[in-house]
């Protein structure tokens, strides 16, 4: 068979599977929908946030006074800016817990190359929870610690704090440095020499650590000590000679121009804070920035409490977790970009700086950022007054709690839709498989109902007969066809017998009438017409007889008793007798040297040989021998009859042994050939469990017919044969 005929396209199951894949477009599109919906929500949230920022900023628009609430213009002071600290600070002499604020050191006491000179220091100030924090990195080539023997506090390295108290009086505090560890502070008199009271100032807590090039000092004091004006100065008294213990140098934050005024500690404006205090809402942090990029007020926090993000539980939560795990892969698959790459402008600090910068330029902006896996929208809006930007309002909103619920709902929808889709898909595939299996079953049974010879093997189907669907209909209709076909076949099979029965009686009437007619009229005796009429009657009788014999063959073979026969002897005798009967033909026989036993009906084998030899004689070329050969193999024997002469037409090899098929030429028509001879051969061979085939000789000089029969199986057969031989010997 040609390959083109075999490949007719995919099977039913494959087709359904392929069509089923189309369903995958549903989650694909839903996911894209989800993403765009999410973006829409975020955009809406951003807008809302920007509006909030704008709304807050309008509160401050034109309120220059709030930002310039300090009694002295801020430009006149070198302000010490206390930055808001995000996390609590441990007073331990290390700046590691200061976060990003630690990078904002101010340098004091620098040399010509802007490096710290001996006694110079780096300072950073922070503010948290009503406390002022300070961290100092002091460069000191010779550290002289305080000797508690000396009452005077200025006989060792020390830090001076100078401020104006609430009551308007100068406040002076000296932080003494004993040994590395906790420091002690004392309020001192105007000369900075002796403590005013015997007890230390407990409100000022500090810690000192030694560094490679000096010391690190960290301390804090309550902002309330500074009073409302927040004037604050700081100095480092450097003592290098442990002998004289004289102050070599004082590095201070006070203006170097010799002014006695203080530096200003600039903090968030309480008034501004008061305004925005009431505006804070959950998950949002509002910052008010002044034009110098200093946080003037802050309220709220965008960090979420842990339990709020994990309120979900059970299956929904599990699916959600699962979805969170697979989502990056799904996202990459559907959107062609990595998860979280979109729209997030970078880490929160950078984004914060960006929005502040933008707002201080006068441009409202919203950006998204991510802190600890939580998404944050930062919106900033400038505060303006008469075309100048006073500052900006930054609203940082944690959108997790807003989006999480919606997102979770959408995720659930999509997860459930994927699951149901999968279920539908699996069910579809299973259904398709079952359908295909049933159709295959039906086909197998339908094709098994008719054998390779076109004979009916079954008159009804068994499978799918009770099914109510179309396959059941098909099965019933095929079954109905088969039973009709069987009826028809039976009619055809019975036809020769019926025909013989029906024809023989009128034929007999005809025949006897002819004879009586001849008797009554002696003058027509010997008339050629009477003779030809009689011949015609005989001929019809012969035809009908032959047909009926062939039709009855299967039936009469069933009645035949099989016995174990030596085929070698049978065929040898047969060929020997052929030489006697057919004197004008030559026969060549080659057999086996030993007996070849097969379980057969010997008359039928004889009949089979008759038909094959008749055929060979009819077609053999005169003076060429008809070769008969017997071979015994492992469990079959093969009888080969070959003759030289005309070859079979190409298509004949398959149909040669079918009923009523004759490949004889027209010249043989006058003989009684109905194409039954070789059909009989086949029926007999198949009845004995063998087969027959005919083919042209390889050299094209003639035809060979090969009959294969099974050998009698060894033990039982030989015992039987021995028994017969013994019986015969008696």
């Amino acid at each position, binding site marked *: 068979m040609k390959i083109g005929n075999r490949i007719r396209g995919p099977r039913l199951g494959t087709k359904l599977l392929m069509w089923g894949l189309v369903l995958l477009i549903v989650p694909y599109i839903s996911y894209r929908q989800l993403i765009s919906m999410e973006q829409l929500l975020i955009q809406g949230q951003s807008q809302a946030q920007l509006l909030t920022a704008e709304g807050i900023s309008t509160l401050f628009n034109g309120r220059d006074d709030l930002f310039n609430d300090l009694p002295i213009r801020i430009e006149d002071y070198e302000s010490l800016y206390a930055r808001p600290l995000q996390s609590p600070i441990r007073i331990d002499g290390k700046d590691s817990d200061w976060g990003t604020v630690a990078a904002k050191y101010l340098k004091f006491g620098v040399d010509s190359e802007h490096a710290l000179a001996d006694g110079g220091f780096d300072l950073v100030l922070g503010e948290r929870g009503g406390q002022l924090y300070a961290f100092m990195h002091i460069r000191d080539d010779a550290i002289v610690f305080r000797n508690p023997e000396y009452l005077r506090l200025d006989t060792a390295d020390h830090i001076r704090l100078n401020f104006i108290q609430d009551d308007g009086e100068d406040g002076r505090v000296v932080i003494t440095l004993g040994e590395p560890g906790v420091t002690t502070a004392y309020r001192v008199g105007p000369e900075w020499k002796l403590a005013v009271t015997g007890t230390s100032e407990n409100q000022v807590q500090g810690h000192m650590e030694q560094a490679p090039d000096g010391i690190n000092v960290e301390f804090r004091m309550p902002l309330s000590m500074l009073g409302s004006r927040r004037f604050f100065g700081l100095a480092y008294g450097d003592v290098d000679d442990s002998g004289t213990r004289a102050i070599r140098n004082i590095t201070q934050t006070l203006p170097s121009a010799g002014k006695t005024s203080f530096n200003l500690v600039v903090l968030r404006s309480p008034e501004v804070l008061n305004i925005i205090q009431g505006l804070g809402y959950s998950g949002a942090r509002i910052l008010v920035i002044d034009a110098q990029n200093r946080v003037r007020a802050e309220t709220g926090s965008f960090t979420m409490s842990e339990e709020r993000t994990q309120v979900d539980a059970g299956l929904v939560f599990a699916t959600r977790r699962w979805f969170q795990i697979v989502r990056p892969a799904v996202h990459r698959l559907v959107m062609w970009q990595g998860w979280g790459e979109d729209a997030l402008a970078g880490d929160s600090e950078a984004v914060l700086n960006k929005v502040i910068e933008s707002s201080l330029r006068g441009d409202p902006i919203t950006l998204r950022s991510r802190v600890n896996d939580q998404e944050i929208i930062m919106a900033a809006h400038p505060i303006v007054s008469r075309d100048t930007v006073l500052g900006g309002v930054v609203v940082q909103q944690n959108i997790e709690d807003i989006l999480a619920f919606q997102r979770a709902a959408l995720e659930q929808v999509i997860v459930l839709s994927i699951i149901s889709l999968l279920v539908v898909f699996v069910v579809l595939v299973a259904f398709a498989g079952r359908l295909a299996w049933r159709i295959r079953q039906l086909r197998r049974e339908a094709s098994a109902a008719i054998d390779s010879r076109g004979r009916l093997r079954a008159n009804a189907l068994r499978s799918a007969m009770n099914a109510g669907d179309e396959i059941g209909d098909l099965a019933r209709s095929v079954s109905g066809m088969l039973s009709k076909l069987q009826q028809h076949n039976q009619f055809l099979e019975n036809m020769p*017998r019926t025909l*013989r*029965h029906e024809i*023989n*009686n009128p*034929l*007999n*009437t*005809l*025949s*006897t*009438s002819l*004879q*009586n007619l001849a*008797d009554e009229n002696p003058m027509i005796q010997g008339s050629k017409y009477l003779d030809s009429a009689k011949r015609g*009657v*005989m001929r019809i*009788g*012969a035809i009908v*007889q032959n047909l*009926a*014999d062939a039709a*009855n063959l299967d039936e*009469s073979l069933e*009645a035949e008793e099989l016995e174990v026969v030596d085929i070698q002897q*049978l*065929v040898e*005798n*047969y*060929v*020997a*007798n*052929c030489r*006697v*009967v057919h004197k004008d033909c030559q026969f060549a026989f080659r057999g086996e040297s030993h007996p070849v036993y097969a379980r057969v009906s*010997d*008359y039928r*084998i*004889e*009949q089979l*040989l*008759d038909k094959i*030899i008749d055929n060979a004689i009819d077609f053999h070329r005169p003076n060429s021998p008809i070769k008969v050969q017997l071979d015994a193999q492992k469990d079959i024997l093969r009888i080969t009859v070959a003759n030289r002469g005309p070859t079979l037409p190409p298509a004949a090899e398959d149909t040669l042994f079918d009923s009523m098929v004759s490949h004889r030429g027209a010249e043989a028509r006058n003989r009684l050939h109905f194409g039954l001879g070789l059909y009989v051969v086949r029926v007999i061979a198949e009845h004995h469990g063998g087969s027959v085939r005919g083919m042209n000789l390889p050299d094209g000089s003639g035809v060979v017919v090969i009959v294969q029969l099974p050998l009698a199986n060894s033990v039982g057969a030989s015992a039987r044969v021995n028994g017969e031989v013994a*019986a*015969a010997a*008696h």
Partner: protein
Amino acid sequence: MAKRIAIVEDDPDQRANYRDAITKKGYDVDSYASREAALEGIERQMPDLAILDIILGEEIDAGFQLCRDLLVRAPTLPVIFLTERIGEIDKISGLRLGAWDYLPKPISLDYLAERISSLLRINEVRNATNAKESTTARRVGDLMLDQDALLVSWKNQPMNLSGTEFRMLAKLVRVPGHAVSYETLMNATMQSLVTNNTINTHMRNIRKKFEKIDDGFACIKSEYGFGYRWSVQ
């Protein structure tokens, strides 16, 4: 007194043809169309020979049944089946019932007349030899063959062979040890339309009848492709 022949045939044309032909040969003929009519008629007057068709009207096996009934009444009555049912199985069952001959349609009327006279003669001889020892008997080894009376015995046990079987056996043993061709055997059946298969069937029946008497019987040998041979043990 003319012999009385009973003909049972449902087809009126054929019945008339038989009756005419046989009457012409000088026999008294009773012809019947059905089994019941035949039984009634035969009950009245027993014929010397009966010719039966098998299928009578709707009754498919009427002839067989009739044969059984007749042989119960007259075991020596020669019965000839003359029928279109010429399958091997029908033939065998007919002969097993004890019919003397089984003739297929279409038949030659001359041949039929010959069969009738032959069977009547044989029956006469048989009846006569019941009294005295046969003179036409022939002995071949253990086989005793009385050609005229159509009587066979093997090892002194009488056998019941049909006419056809008897004639075939007689041909076979004419020259013991010599192979007899199918053609010769076909002629012996005195029937038209005889195939090798028919011969084989007859031979097998004959062999079976011998084997019934004698388990070790192996005198009838098959000469495949040619015919049969009677080998003397």
